[in-house]
């Protein structure tokens, strides 16, 4: 990392490492050097929605996975569901099972990368360790077995997609009405072989994070810990449900505000407001208004809103997670990591159940239909949170309007608050230690944001951290290369 101080005494950190997109963090100091404010800016413009206008709605499940190479399945699933609403059809039982399975694969793959390779360097190598080795290479050097296991876990997730569709990413098999490819018996068996290892690796990750949480209670519990509302999808009994749930909002005390909401009604409860310093909008829970209505999505939110998990091993960890706050919502941003791992465990257990369903190899994988309604809304839980696709069409099926409400956008207000909380705790004055700035970055990494979904990005993730004095003059700038 280059630590540069220019004539205006500006601190700039660029890029914030191990997340994606193009963004900048500004930390504003008071006269005494303490932090008064912090903002997480996203500087790139979002244009995908406009690009889709004029296309046939049926093209969307194949186009939208191109938004992101990490969560293409969530986009494809949400898109297929929106198309199904337009067509007035439902997928077949097996089509749904296959989509659910491929969705699990993506979740495992994404969560594995986030924990084992991007976040674990902070826990295992130390927040203040040499930034040159506090990364994926450092983990590979000191914990090669863990690193390899993390890679294999990702491979398992990707292989689900590959064995169903023949492609590791940008699966083209998800279609309105179901799937384009069945799962062969040979591929079903091959995927089942992975399950024990995948569970074991995830449990290793859970042991690591629990030990870290136990050994660093004060830091973990105080790390960007602030109350918010939460949104996630749940099944009929309030169980954690990533593929096909209904919306549940809870408040900061855990009171259910809205439950079993049809995702198609999302606009009745979610509004967005533009802000002048970021291209990401600020979504909020409409009934509470802009000031009080910001909510979080993603693994922490999903486990905060859920009443239970669907599978036994994950349920055991879920109970442990809930017990930490006496059953109340856990507001600690650091707990994104633990909840991510619990979700991954649940996903793997669910994958085993699906692969043992006799119908999974049926070839009855798709229903068919045509344009019937001008509007369609689809929803799925992407690894980073609740995702909505909303299409308006003319009577020939051409898209007139596209709205994509993505997880990172919904977490934007909370990412800002997290940066502020952590900066207040660890930054004081312009001469900031690298380890302190790493913690500021880590607050963002907890959310594992995908700024290429919410805006766009080319290649790596440049973020600048800029520190301004009480008169608004930039006094320090740090950049990474």
């Amino acid at each position, binding site marked *: 990392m280059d630590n540069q101080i220019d004539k205006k005494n500006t601190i700039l950190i660029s890029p914030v490492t191990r997340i994606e997109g193009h963004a900048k963090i500004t930390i504003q100091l008071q006269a005494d050097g303490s932090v008064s404010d912090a903002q997480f800016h996203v500087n790139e413009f979002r244009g995908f929605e406009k690009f889709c206008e004029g296309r046939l709605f049926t093209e969307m499940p194949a186009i939208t996975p191109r938004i992101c190479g990490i969560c293409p399945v969530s986009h494809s699933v949400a898109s297929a569901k929106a198309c199904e609403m337009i067509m007035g059809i439902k997928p077949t039982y097996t089509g749904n099972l296959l989509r659910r399975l491929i969705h699990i694969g993506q979740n495992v793959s994404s969560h594995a*990368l986030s924990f084992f390779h991007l976040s674990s360097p902070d826990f295992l190598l130390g927040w203040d360790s040499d930034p040159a080795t506090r990364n994926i290479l450092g983990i590979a050097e000191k914990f090669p077995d863990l690193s390899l296991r993390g890679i294999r876990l990702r491979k398992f997730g990707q292989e689900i997609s590959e064995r169903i569709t023949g492609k590791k*990413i940008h699966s083209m098999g998800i279609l309105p009405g179901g799937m384009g490819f069945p799962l062969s018996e040979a591929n079903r068996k091959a995927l089942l072989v992975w399950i024990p290892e995948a569970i074991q690796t995830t449990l290793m990750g859970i042991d690591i994070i629990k030990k870290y949480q136990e050994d660093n209670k004060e830091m973990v519990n105080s790390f960007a810990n602030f109350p918010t509302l939460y949104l996630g999808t749940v099944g009929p009994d309030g169980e954690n449900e990533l593929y096909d749930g209904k919306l549940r909002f809870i408040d900061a005390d855990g009171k259910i505000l809205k439950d079993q909401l049809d995702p198609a009604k999302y606009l009745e409860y979610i509004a967005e407001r533009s802000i002048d310093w970021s291209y990401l909008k600020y979504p909020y829970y409409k009934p509470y208004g802009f000031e009080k209505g910001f909510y979080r999505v993603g693994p922490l939110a999903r486990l905060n809103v859920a009443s239970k998990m669907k599978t036994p091993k994950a349920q055991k960890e879920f109970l442990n997670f809930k017990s930490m706050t006496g059953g109340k919502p856990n507001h600690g941003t650091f707990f994104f990591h633990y909840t991510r791992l619990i979700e991954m465990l649940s996903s793997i257990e669910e994958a085993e159940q699906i692969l043992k369903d006799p119908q999974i190899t049926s070839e009855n994988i798709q229903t068919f239909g045509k344009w019937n309604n001008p509007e369609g809304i689809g929803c799925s839980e992407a690894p980073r949170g609740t995702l909505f696709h909303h299409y308006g069409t003319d009577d020939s099926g051409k898209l007139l309007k596209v709205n994509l409400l993505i997880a990172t956008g919904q977490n934007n207000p909370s990412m800002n608050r997290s940066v502020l909380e952590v900066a207040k705790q660890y930054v004081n004055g312009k001469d900031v230690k690298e380890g302190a700035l790493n913690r500021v970055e880590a607050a963002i990494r907890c959310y594992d944001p995908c700024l290429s979904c919410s805006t766009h990005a080319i290649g790596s993730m440049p973020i600048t951290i800029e520190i301004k004095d009480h008169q608004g003059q930039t006094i320090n700038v740090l950049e990474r290369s």
Partner: protein
Amino acid sequence: MIGVVGIGNPLRCDDGVGPYIASAIDDMHLSGVEVMITQQLHLEFIDKFLQYDKVVIVDACVTGCDFDFYPIKKAQERRVASSHHLDVNLLSDLAKRLYGKEIDLYICSVRGENFEIGEVVSTKVLACAQKAIEVICAFLRSKDHA
């Protein structure tokens, strides 16, 4: 066996030049050549790449010369990793550290002009792509790899 890997997003204009070149090479059905197209590099590709004698990664770049072809040993040291991006140098390093093996990597880069959302590769970039295809094919057909 030589792997040719086209990297990029065809919905981001010139970012699609990697897949464009890889597709063109795939259409030639060259013996001993396997083509793969992906939007981005992933860690689990290491396994696959280690199975090849050589790997040619074809990607758009944002700086540097219009077209370049070089072994990874001469590449600049950049080790960026994020959820959505894995630097090729890092991939190479990880292969050495985790598997104790080297991937014989080559980079073919074509400098893009426009990375906005769209499906059209710029005319100038397409011209460079043709040159890239010729150079890669010459490399694949060279005696060293027969």
